[in-house]
């Protein structure tokens, strides 16, 4: 075999990649250019050729529903209350132990009431594992999609307190549509069950 043929063949591959990057650009010429948001799925899909990079921050990859990044607390906009009951499961399951919860107390009776008085998540420690959302029995804590959290200071601005953590359930419904659908279905089922029970009770 001729010495150097392997190198030439290899360079052929490089050349192919180089040419493809132009062919792809030309192909999208009459569709408003390749770097339009609507072409992003094709450019990043399994049949993509040519330049593979995404022009962040001008364009961003769409996030799948499961994507997880720092939790937030869900605020129930219909019943106007925080969904969290301060049961403490998220604080217990948290691997780096970055959740601090002060359980609420009823001032008149002094007994615990199902609402957090204070809730902190230390985002400098959080490892975004998603256990809190996975094990919350009340669907009160969910993982966020907002990953742009950089700040000029690394202490106060990254210690999230209750007002910072609360987000309306409409936001939750928007970023987690199928999870939200499951929640609604479960609620319906529970209502139906209750209705059945009540019906059974009155008939008996």
């Amino acid at each position, binding site marked *: 075999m001729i010495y150097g043929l392997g190198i030439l063949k*290899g360079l052929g591959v490089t050349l192919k990649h180089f040419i493809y990057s132009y062919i792809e650009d030309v192909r999208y010429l009459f569709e408003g250019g390749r770097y339009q948001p609507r072409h992003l799925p094709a450019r990043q899909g399994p049949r993509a050729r040519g330049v593979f990079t995404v022009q962040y921050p001008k364009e961003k990859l769409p996030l799948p529903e499961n994507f997880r990044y720092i939790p937030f607390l869900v605020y129930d906009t219909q019943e106007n209350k925080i969904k969290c009951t301060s049961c*403490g499961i998220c604080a217990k399951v948290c691997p780096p*132990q970055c959740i*601090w919860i002060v359980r609420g107390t009823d001032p008149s009776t002094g007994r615990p009431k199902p609402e957090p008085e204070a809730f902190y998540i230390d985002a400098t420690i959080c490892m975004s594992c998603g256990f809190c959302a996975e094990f919350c029995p009340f669907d009160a804590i969910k993982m966020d999609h907002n990953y742009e959290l950089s700040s000029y200071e690394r202490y106060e601005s990254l210690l999230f307190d209750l007002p910072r953590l609360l987000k309306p359930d409409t936001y939750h419904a928007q970023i987690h549509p199928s999870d939200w659908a499951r929640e609604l279905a479960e609620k319906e089922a529970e209502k139906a069950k209750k209705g059945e029970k009540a019906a059974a009770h009155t008939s008996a």
Partner: protein
Amino acid sequence: MTAPTKAKAVPRAELKGDLAVLKEKFGDAVQPAEYEGVVIANDVLLEAARFIRDELGYRYLSSLTAVDYIQEGYFEVVYHAYRLEGGGPLVFKARTPRDVATVPSLVSVWPGADFQEREAWDLMGIRFAGHPNLKRILLWEGFHGHPLRKDWKEPYYEEEHKPFSSRWPSGHHIRAEDRVFWHDNVQYPLDWDPDQVEDTSDELLYIGMGQFARAETGELVEPKSLRTERLVVNMGPQHPSTHGVFRMVVTLDGETIVRLEPVMGYLHRNHEKIGERNMYLQNMPYTDRLDYICSMSNNLGYAIAVEKLLGIRPPERAEYLRVIMAEFTRIVNHLWAIGFLLNDLGAFFTPALYAIEERELILDLFEEAAGSRMMCNYMRFGGVAHDVSDDWIARAKELVYNRLPRAIEELDRYLTHNELIKARCQGVGVLPPDLAVAYSTAGPVLRASGIPYDVRRAEPYSIYDRFDFDVAVRYNGDVYDRYLIRIDEMWQSLRILRQALDQIPKGEIQAGKKQYMIRVPAGQAYGRVENPKGELGFYIVSDGSPNPYRYHIRAPSFINLTALNEMCKGHKVADVVVILGSIDIVLGEVDR
């Protein structure tokens, strides 16, 4: 939280098969141990180890670790040896009282015990009598104490075990730094004087290297016409092509390597101590961060080890999903390894970027299934975290049937026959098969040296026994073969993926109810999987509480480095970088 006490009726291991042979040979010096294996008396340990290796045929020492039984007052060193033909381990143990803390070193029997014994000395404080180079390996000389001992407490120590009681119900946030009044990182010993602290690691190291350099070993014939001088050179830490913060100290004769010693621990965080503070489930996301390229298969290894103790198996669909994820991970890792091997050769980033295009597509799949591209945290005990949609399967098939074969073929065409690569890789860093086994190397490094040992075949876990695939093997043991074997393994992974994606059934993905605080029955288990970088093992001792009593990781990249000195001897400085690249290490796993 108590250690398994003798007062409780702890089941003793039954002595049958090779254990019985061992007992017959050494009589009272061999006693059945708790749960599994035998305890061998220290005075016959070396002899017994030779017997185990030569007569019983357990030539491969997979794991060596130590457990601190503080209540009973002794340390236990646990060895897992395997036959290369496959099958289960021979577990044997050595014990030493805590105040003596000395056991004979097995480096003369298995050179692969070298780094593992140094690690046990460093973290557990057990001296290995007869070890040729018993220095700390992950921490520095002068470090106070041995952190894996049960009575050692880390800086910012809060409580023995998570969950910490300060978090709930009256969890007023307090920063760890504020808990110590000098707002700094440490708990100082009482008699500690900062002026007295000396880090003597480097001195010790250089003395060792220098002596070797001065000694007339006769290993290298010095040309008479040219007078050369031996000198010690530091490569790294933080050289771009040394794969992370890793340092190699080399003694050079001219430009030829006489001796090389890797220095590591720059990324050490005592993963195992963290793991012993954590609850079982809480360790899952931490395993992602070991070998951060292959988080899926790390998850799998840990899940399998704990499931051994729990005695459960995940449902069918979950098993298939696990295999699919693990094999995709292998492809990701090998693409990455090949790309960066080329970086190390000096082909800066073009091959690497071509190789990791497909990695992006696979990571997209991971992100959709698990929620994160690299820190997947996907497996649970008895199942997986999320199910995947039909659309996901269709996309995975598209990748496996169309895109990936084309990409691997292209990579092959691009690099394999390149004369420059051949010139730089063939015959470089040769590791003969007997040494590869002796040094306990694993994965592609072992198989490129002609040993067809693959845990997926040797001791099948999960559902690997159902799939039709070959164990890739190459025979020259040089850098070129370690490159080729990664291509071969990707083809085999594709074969497994095709079968798994075609056969995957519908159904449940989690056995039983998902729990966050599982109670694991008391016992010991060693779960191992064939990670892309080699055999990844988790040794777990449970005392029945929600936290593991001992949590040890047999990290393939760490142990593969034991053979680095052997591979580099006689080569040039430029080759060292390539040889290191061909072992394919990840410092998150090496330093733990």
